[in-house]
């Protein structure tokens, strides 16, 4: 039996991950012959790490993804159309690729706001304007920014702030312009947005919130709708993305915001699948790598026949800002107010230090959280949320990521007789006291009598302290 011909359009993180998952199940290509068509000229890379490249902590080479083996990879190649009637993909150069199954992994493209001057009359980005989406974008931004030069970032969402932090870390004077009056409004409530703003300002980043950029002047900067002006040698546009659905539309598939897929990741044509940013799955927010990776697992199960019952049921969304010196996690319902019936809401505000922690629970389960400047808490809360596991009763410890410190270390007098002083030899306070009363009046004598201190020696101070305490109690 010859392998099924699977053609994947798009070689970003979703396409690359799918290839890898397919080959994990079918290493020698006995079940699936895989062809991947990619528009960019280089191999796939890890988009999540682009902010680290921009910040200079990783090199562009370091974020490249390994190529899957046994794949017919066509780079620098555009798809011009799909003929569903005869199941063929038509490439820009006229070559055709017949398929048994087609996968759309076309991703998304940055959205550029209609600010005057950002685009040239021809529709290209104007001089000094860059989107922040690809490895090439990264390289262009880094090449165009001299240390100390002013940069404007359009968009105070997750990616915009990561770019801003990276550029500030490189020594640029960064101003973030955001049309809503608090940052990351999709993931944060207003208090968290304000605390985050405070942290960013402390790091030297200027913020212009609740204002629109109305005009860009190359070499000068941005004019805002409040009449003010932001000087900028460079403008980084990070105002959101739109699913790339042109190919799906042109061949008549059902497209809403993205290409509509079911739990088997099938589009309206059951021989065509879609995953990643270009796909729209009910109840799933697109644009996150975790969703694409989870989808790749399911689709590889289905395409290779490894598990025909595999289905994609969504990915819990956890937002983590990757920016040096700022620890921010947000998940689930973040806008729920403390007085909402049925919800248990805890909130800790420490605006002076840019810290904010909010936890939303329903029926003992974590349903939402914002954790800014509480790095120890995010890990446990995220796991509870991902698994739907019951939350610990000590809510405050959960919110803070650590138990409150216990009362000051008890002195020898306060310890119960059963307290083990020397773990290596299971010697309790009671045994030491008895030995003392029987005449062992020094640390050495106590060691001889009880073996305390004779293992790792870590309890020596405690035994000395006990001896001193006992000695002080002796009548003069």
């Amino acid at each position, binding site marked *: 039996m010859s392998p099924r011909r699977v053609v994947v359009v798009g070689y970003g993180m979703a396409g690359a991950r799918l290839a890898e998952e397919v080959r994990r199940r079918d290493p020698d290509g006995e079940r699936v012959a895989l062809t991947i068509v990619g528009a960019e000229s280089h191999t796939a890379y890890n988009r*999540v790490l682009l902010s*680290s490249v921009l910040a200079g902590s990783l090199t562009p080479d370091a974020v490249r993804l390994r190529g899957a083996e046994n794949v017919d990879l066509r780079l620098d190649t555009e798809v011009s159309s799909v003929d569903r009637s005869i199941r063929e993909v038509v490439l820009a150069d006229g070559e055709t690729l017949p398929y048994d199954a087609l996968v759309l992994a076309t991703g998304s493209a940055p959205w550029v706001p209609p600010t005057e001057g950002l685009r040239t009359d021809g529709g290209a980005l104007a001089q000094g304007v860059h989107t922040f989406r690809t490895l090439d974008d990264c390289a262009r931004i880094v090449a165009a920014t001299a240390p100390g030069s002013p940069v404007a970032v359009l968009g105070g969402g997750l990616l915009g702030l990561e770019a801003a932090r990276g550029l500030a870390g490189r020594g640029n004077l960064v101003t973030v312009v955001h049309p809503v009056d608090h940052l990351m409004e999709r993931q944060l409530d207003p208090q968290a947005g304000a605390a985050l703003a405070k942290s960013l300002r402390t790091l030297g980043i200027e913020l212009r919130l609740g204002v629109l950029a109305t005009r860009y002047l190359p070499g000068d900067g941005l004019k805002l709708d409040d009449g003010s002006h932001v000087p900028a040698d460079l403008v980084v546009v990070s105002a959101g993305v739109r699913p790339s659905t042109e190919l799906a539309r042109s061949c008549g598939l059902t497209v809403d915001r993205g290409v509509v897929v079911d739990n088997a990741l099938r589009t309206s044509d059951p021989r065509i699948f879609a995953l990643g940013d270009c796909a729209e799955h009910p109840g799933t927010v697109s644009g996150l790598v975790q969703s694409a990776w989870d989808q790749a697992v399911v689709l590889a199960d289905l395409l290779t026949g490894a598990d025909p019952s595999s289905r994609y049921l969504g990915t819990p969304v956890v937002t983590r800002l*990757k920016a040096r010196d700022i620890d921010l996690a947000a998940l689930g319902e973040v806008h729920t107010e403390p007085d909402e019936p049925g919800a248990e809401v805890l909130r800790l505000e420490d605006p002076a230090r840019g810290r904010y922690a909010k936890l939303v629970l329903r029926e003992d389960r974590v349903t939402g959280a914002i954790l800014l400047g509480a790095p120890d808490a995010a890990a446990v809360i995220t*796991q509870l949320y991902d698994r739907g596991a019951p939350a610990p009763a000590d809510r405050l410890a959960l919110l803070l990521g650590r138990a409150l410190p216990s009362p000051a270390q008890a002195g020898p007098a306060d310890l119960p007789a059963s307290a083990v002083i020397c773990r290596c030899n299971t010697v309790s306070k009671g045994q030491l006291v008895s030995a003392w009363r029987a005449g062992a009046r020094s640390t050495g004598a106590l060691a001889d009598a009880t073996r305390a201190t004779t*293992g790792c*020696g870590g309890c020596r101070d405690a035994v000395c302290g006990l001896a001193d305490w006992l000695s002080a109690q002796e009548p003069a």
Partner: protein
Amino acid sequence: MPTPTHCPYCALQCGMTIKPGPVVEPREFPVNRGGLCQKGWTSAALLNTPGRLTTPLVKGEPASWEDALDHVAQRLQELRAEHGPDAVAVFGGGGLTNEKAYLLGKFARVALGTSQIDYNGRFCMSSAAAAGIRAFGVDRGLPFPVTDLANADAVLLIGANVAETMPPFVQHLRRAIDAGGLVVVDPRRTATAEQAAVHLAPTPGTDLALALGLLHVAVAEGHVDKDYLSRRTVGFEETWEVAARWWPEQVERVTGVSAADQRRAVAVLSRADNAYVLTARGTEQHASGSDMVSAWINLALALGLPGRSGSGFGCLTGQGNGQGGREHGQKADQLPGYRKIDDPAAREHVAEVWGVEPESLPGPGKSAYELLDSLGAGPRALMVFGSNVAVSAPRSAHVAERLAALDFLVVADFVLSETAVLADVVFPVTQWAEEGGTMTNLEGRVLLRGRAVTPPPGVRTDLEVLHELSVRLGQPAERFPVDEEAVFSELRKASAGGAADYAGISYERLRAGEALHWPCPDETHPGTPRLFLDRFAHADGKARMIAVDHRGPAELPDDDYPLSATTGRVLQHYQSGAQTRRIPELTAAVPEAFVEVHPDTAGRAGLGEGDVARVSSRRGEVLAKVRCVPGMRTDTVFLPFHFPGDQRANLITNPVLDPISRMPEFKVCAVRLEAVT
């Protein structure tokens, strides 16, 4: 006469002295510096333990040595004649002396002609060994003396609870602890984790993701020693391609270890002048255990630690002779000197020393759990030396069934262990201070343990048992010597030229007090306390970074079994407890099994402190008293594995095996916690 010896328990092999009584006292020795834990202090009680066996047992009845030996030889010959040589299997132990381990392997291959031999060290060091050989070309638990650790500013301990499993070892960490340089990876807040500056508590079974995260941080924060990598390693590119997708926030979601703590841990390691990375069973006893160790080695290599004076990577060996026990031929796939049994040159060398034809040596056999799993259907007879598989093997109810399916079970032990109870014939043998022999401790140092006390009348040494049986099986008498020094002389020849080369180590040199670490190829060689300073043991001298990825536990929690169980040791007991459970002072301290649970998790199951809980997995259930421990993860329970019967932690453990090391997944399985009504 006070006689210097070493402790009968763990691989630290603390120096001690036996005095009449008998009683033991600690002795100045580099590994313990005069310290002993409670097990060591009370070890003399083993020598006159009330349950001591002094008469062979045949079907539970006392028998003479001659009758018992004749009976065993006859039954083995019958089974072999009927079903072929592989009908007889042999199971050894990591507590056996080098001489016994060596002679047991030779007995299996030559006197029995069976390929079916493995040992409990498979459950202990096999993943560490596999990863060490892959990376460095040779497996020596610590390729440096333990005392080198005392100069470390930072130590990363992974799955190692040394404060309970080898307490005197903690002395060597004092500097790192005091400098805020101890980093401990353990799902539990153990006695060791409590002393750490940074405690990373991953979800059980996710260590590999954590190791990848730390490597990612090390790269992103510029802590990688690029010069070292290019001079001394190969494979960084491929390794990074995997680690690149494990950025700290991604790792956090899988492991539950915060990104900030991952960064803290790397910062501690990278700012140290001298740093060590050490693994133990917590990260090794997994179905991906070999890969887990490889991932930690990768981190150590990226930081430029292995093979550098004052820094390094190592694995903490568990059993007393866990190191020597894995070098001299009781492993299914190995011949003495850490040689591979399928290597023609190795077969030729060893066959010549043994005076047999290379073709007569069997090939590789099944690994420990696979061997136990095949009993009855495969081997019809099993001979057990120095192991208590009824308690220590995974999925132990099933293993007990397999033992019951045998035609013939022979056990050599000094007490009636849970396995010996099931045996057709039990040979009462000498223990520890009653016999001579060498042990190779966790740092690859060979120690001579002289006979210190006279054994009780009626017991014989394992070497004598093997000798008597081999003669009855038609072997020339001189082929299986009973004198340990004679056996060792032969071992030296058999190991000569192998990875673990003992050729230059003699009883004479050891008696003179020389500190000899293998390899020691000739009598003028000073031994090798530190390996890899110039080169690693691969042909090109470079270490290999292996591009391993996180796979996760074989069994994930679900609605039916919502918690993860992990197992381990307590300070007062050793392994299956066959020895320590006979010592009143130790059983008084920890008399029975318990299950550590977060108070909330206990409360949800309707359980409180001291209640008896039923902990069930898909393979069985254990009964254990609840200990509420606020420091536990709410998704994890912990059970010690020292207890027999209904309290055997291994009734629930998962026997799924690592594909490379054949290590069972002792350290994580999905369980349910219920009150016993």
